[in-house]
C-alpha cells in the first residue's frame, strides 16, 4: 500500500452498527487502510465521480473495490450500482453487494447491472467477517499492481 492517496475500498453502509462491525472485520483482515466510508448513496456517488466535497479528486485513483449495501437512504445501492456500471470511467471497478437481502429480485437485478459479487450478510457475525475477509482479499489481490508486491 505504497500510494497513500489511493483509496483501496469504498464501503457504503448506512447502519452504524453494521458499519462498525464491517470495519472491525476489515481491520481484523488487515484491510482497514485506505477505506473510504460513505453513509448513503449520494455520498458514495460524490466520492466516486469527484463531485461536491470530493471535487478535485482524480476519478482514476480508485477505489479498487466497492462494498455496497443495497438499502441506503437518499440514493439506494441499486442506483449507485447502475451509475457505476454505466459510466466508462468507473465501469472497471469491482462492486461487491453486501446486503441482508436474499430477495431474488435484488440478486437478479444486481447481476443484470453487472455486479461482480453478491454477499448476503449473515446474522452470524463470524461468518460475516469470514465472508468480508475472503471477498476483500480476493478483489484486492486481483487488482494489485505488480510494483506494489512485497
Amino acid at each position, binding site marked *: 500500500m505504497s500510494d497513500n492517496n489511493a483509496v483501496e475500498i469504498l464501503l457504503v453502509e448506512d447502519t452504524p452498527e453494521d458499519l462498525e462491525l464491517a470495519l472491525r472485520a476489515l481491520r481484523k483482515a488487515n484491510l482497514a487502510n485506505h477505506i473510504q466510508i460513505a453513509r448513503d448513496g449520494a455520498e458514495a456517488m460524490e466520492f466516486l465521480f469527484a463531485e461536491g466535497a470530493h471535487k478535485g479528486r482524480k476519478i482514476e485513483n480508485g477505489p479498487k473495490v466497492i462494498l455496497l449495501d443495497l*438499502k441506503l437512504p437518499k440514493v439506494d445501492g441499486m442506483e449507485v450500482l447502475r451509475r457505476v456500471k454505466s459510466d466508462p470511467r468507473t465501469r472497471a471497478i469491482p462492486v461487491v453487494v453486501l446486503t441482508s437481502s436474499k*430477495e431474488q429480485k435484488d440478486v437478479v437485478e444486481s447481476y443484470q447491472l453487472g455486479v461482480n459479487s453478491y454477499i448476503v450478510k449473515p446474522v452470524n*457475525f463470524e461468518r460475516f467477517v469470514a465472508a468480508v475477509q475472503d471477498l476483500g482479499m480476493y478483489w484486492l489481490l486481483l487488482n494489485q499492481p505488480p510494483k506494489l508486491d512485497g
Partner: protein
Amino acid sequence: MNADRLPRPAPYSRVFSQIAGIATALLGGGALLGWWSNNEGLKSIVPGSSALRPNIAVVMLLCGGGLAFLSLTRSAKPARLCAGLVGIIVMVLGGLSLGEHFLGWNLEIDRWFIGPQINGTSRMPPLTPTTALCFVVMGILFFAQSPLASRRWSLPLAAGLSVALVFVGLLPLAGLLLETLFGRQWNLMGMNVSALTVSAGFLLLGSGVLALLQSQRQLVWSLGGFTTAGFVSGILLVVLAAAVAFTYTKRMLETTTWLSHRQEVIQKVQEVMTDITDLISQQRVYVILGEEEFLNGREQTRSEVAKDLIDLRKLTADNPNQQRRLTQLEPLIGQRIDWDEQVIAARRDQGFPSAVQMIGTRQGISLSAEMTGLLQEMEDEEYRLLAMDRKQARTVTITAFSLLPLGVFLSLTILSLGLSFLNAGVTEQKHAQKALRGNEAQLQTIVENLDEGVIVADLDGRLLQWNRAALQLHGYSSSEQDRRHFPELVDTFEISTLDGLVLPVEEWPLAQILRDKKLHNLELRLHRIGSDWERIFDYGGTLVHDETGRPVLAIVTVADITERKLADERVRASEGRYRTLFESNPNPMWVYDLETLSFLAVNVAAVRHYGFTEKEFLAMTLKDIRPAEDIPSLMDNLSQAGSELDETTEWRHRKKDGGSIDVEITSHELLWLGRPARLVLINDITDHKRAEDQIRQLNLELEERVQHRTAELESANKELEAFSYSVSHDLRSPLRTVDGFSQAVLEDFGPQLPDEGRRYLQTIRDGAQRMGVLIDDLLTFSRLSRLPLHKENVDMGRMVRDTFAELDSEKQGRKIELKIGDLPKVHGDPALLKQVWINLLSNAMKYTRKREMAVIEVGSSRENGAATCFVSDNGTGFDMQYAHKLFGVFQRLHRTDEFEGTGVGLAIVQRVIHRHGGRVWAEATEGKGATFYFTLEGAKQKV
C-alpha cells in the same frame, strides 16, 4: 332459304355462249383469211361495212375461241388456263394500241398479222382509243376467268366488264338505227356502218360471257336497294351524257348553218355591187358610142338587183345594223339607176354633149361613192361576224368531240360499277345454296345417307320413297320393295305410346301429318306384331308445299332413340335414388346457380325450415335470403370463392317470416344441368350460437371477476413482498448487531468477564442466530407462495443424489446408508423441488441421529397413473395421532433441545407439493421410523 326466288337453270345460256364464241371466232378468222387472200368481201364480213382490221380480227378470233372453249368444256381447268392466256395477249394488244394512240409509238400492229400482203395499201392508222380500251377490257374479262384470278373478284369483274362490252357493241348499232329512222343528225355518237363488224364482235363476246356466267350459275340477279340505286344512277348518267352530247352536237350544227348564212350574205352584197357596176358601165359605153345594143339586158339586171336587195333584207333580218344600211342603200341605188336613166335619155334625146354635161355635174359619181361605201360596210360587217362565228364553231366542235368519248367512258364505268354491286350480292352462302339446289341428285344422295330415316308419302298416304336408314330402322332389307307399303305396315306393326297405349291407325304419325299437323319429337313405341321386336322412335314430319302453297308431299322422319331412352331410364332411376337423398335429407339443402345466384333446387327440409314454398324459392336468388347488410360480404365471398373444395362457413339467413337465423354452410361446387352451381347443406346453429354467446358472456364475466380478484391478490402480494423485503433487511440488521457486538465483547473483553457472563453472552448470540434462521425460513416459506413456478423437466434421481451430497453438516461423524430406488422424471420447478428434497433428506438425517446406522430409502411407486415418491428412515418416527399437525407452520412434534428446528421445513415441503398440484402425507411408527410420501401431478414414471 327461299327457293322461289332463285332462277331456274337455263341450259340455253351455255348454248348461246357457245354459239357466240364460235360466231366471233368465225368473224375474226374470216376477216383474217380475207386479208391473207386479199378478198375484200371476207375482210369486211358485213356488207357495206369497212374492212375489219387485222388487229381486231386476231383479237376476235382469240376471244371467240376462248369463249367457245370455256363454254364447251364447262370451264374445265385447261379452258380456264387458256382463257387466262387469251386475256393476257388481248390486254397487251390493247395496251400497245393505246400506246400508239397516246404516246405516238409507231408499231403498225396490223402488219404483224398479215405481213407483206398489205403492200401497196396506204399506211394504216392506229386503232381508235375506244377500240383499244375495249381490248384491254376484254383482256381483263378473260383473265378473270383464269384460275389465277381470285374468285371473290373475278365474278363481279367479269359480269361488269361483259355488260360494258355489250353496251359498247350496242352503241353504234343504236346510232345506226337512229340515223336510219330520224336522219343523220340523230347519230349522236358519230358511229357509222364501217364500225358495224367490230360492234357485232363486241356484242357477241360480251353477251356470250354473260351467258357463260349465267350457265355456271354464278350470276344471280339480286335487286337490293344499293344495286338498284347504282344501276339507276348509272342509267341516269348515261342519259345525261347523251343529253349533253346531243346539245353540243346540235350547237355545232347550228354554228355550221350560221357560217354558210354569212357567206351567202357576203355573196349577195358582192352580187349587188357587181350588178350596179355593170349598170353604170353600160350607161358609160352607151354615152360614148350611142349604140342601143349596149343597153340590152339592162332591165333584167335591174330586177336582179331588186331581188338581191330583198334577199339581203331577209338574210340580215336578225341584224339591225345591216337593215339600217339596207334602208339607206335602197333609195341610193334607186336614185343612181334613175340618174343613169336620165343620162341615157339625155344622150338619146339631146346628144353626147348634153350627156357629157350631165356627167360633168358628178352627181352620179357622188351617188356611186356613197352607195359603194355602204355596201363595203355591209360586207365588212359580215366578214367580221363570220370570223367570230368561225371561232365559236371551233370551240363548240372541240368541246363536243372531247365530251363524247368522256361521256361514253363515264357511263361505261358507272355501269360496270353498278354491275359489280349487283354481283357482290352473290355471297358464299348463295353459292352453297345454289350448289345444294343445283344438283337434285346430290340432294337425293344426302337424304339417302342420312342417319335419320326419311319416308316420303303422297297426300293419299301412299308411301313413295324410303331412305336406307328408314328401311333399316323398320327391319327391312333394301330388296323388300313391295313390303313397305302402308297396308303392309299396318299389318306388321303396332304403334303405341311410351305408356303402352296402342294407337289406332288414324293416329299414326303419317296420318297426323296428313291432317297438316307438324310433328316434332313425337316419341312412340313401334312393335312388330307377333314378335318381341320393339323399338322406341322419335317421329317428326311435315307436309311439303309447292310455290303456290299447295301441299304436295308428306315427309316423315324417324330416329331410333331406344338406347337413349333406356339410358335415360337408368339415369332417372339413379337420379331418383340421389334425389331421395337430397329430398329427404333432414338438413335444409339447395343448389344455386353460381352466376345468377338463383336457386335451382331446394329440398323439403329447406321449405319447412325457411317457410318459403319450393316455387317461391325457385323464383328467388341467394341474395333474397340474406339480410341486406350481409349482401356485400356475400358478393365478396362469392368473388373469392371458386375453389372446388368443400368449405364450412357461418352466415345469417332470413326466413320467410322475417326472422333471422344463424347457419353453418357446407357447400360444394358441381355442374347442375350443365350450369356451374353450388350444392349447399345448411345447419341451423341459432340455438347453438345462442348458447355459445351465453357461455362467452359468462366467461367474460368470470374473466372480469378473475381479473378483479387477481388484481386484489397482486396488490396483497405486493404488500407482502414489501413486508418480507423489509423483514429480510430491517429485521435481520438488529439481530446482526446483537450477535456481532456480543461476539466483539466475547473476543475483546472475554477474559475479563466471569464465566457466567460469557455464558449469557453466548445465549444472547444463540437466540439472535436462531431468530435469524427463523426469519430466513419464514421468508423462504412466504417466497414459495409468491413466486411463479418455472417448470422444466427434472430428473428426480439425480436431484436426490446431488442434494444428498450437498448435505454435509448432518453427515459428519455418522454412518448413513442411502438407498435410492427408481425415481421418475417430472415436470416441475427445479429450485422448489430441490428445497423439497433438502428438507425431507435433512429431516430424515436429523431424526436418525440417534441410530448407530441410519438407513434412508428413497424411491417411487406408481399408483393410479401418478408417481408417488417417498423418503423413509429408521429414525425416531412420531405418533400418528399428531400426523395432521406435521405440515403446519411452526408445528413441531419434538422439543428443540431434542431435535432443533423451526417447524417450517415440512410446511415448505407441503407448500411446494401443493403448488405442483400434488399431495404429501406421512406414515410413522414411534421409535421405528417414518415415511414421507408425495405425488406430483403429471409425474412420469422413469422406467
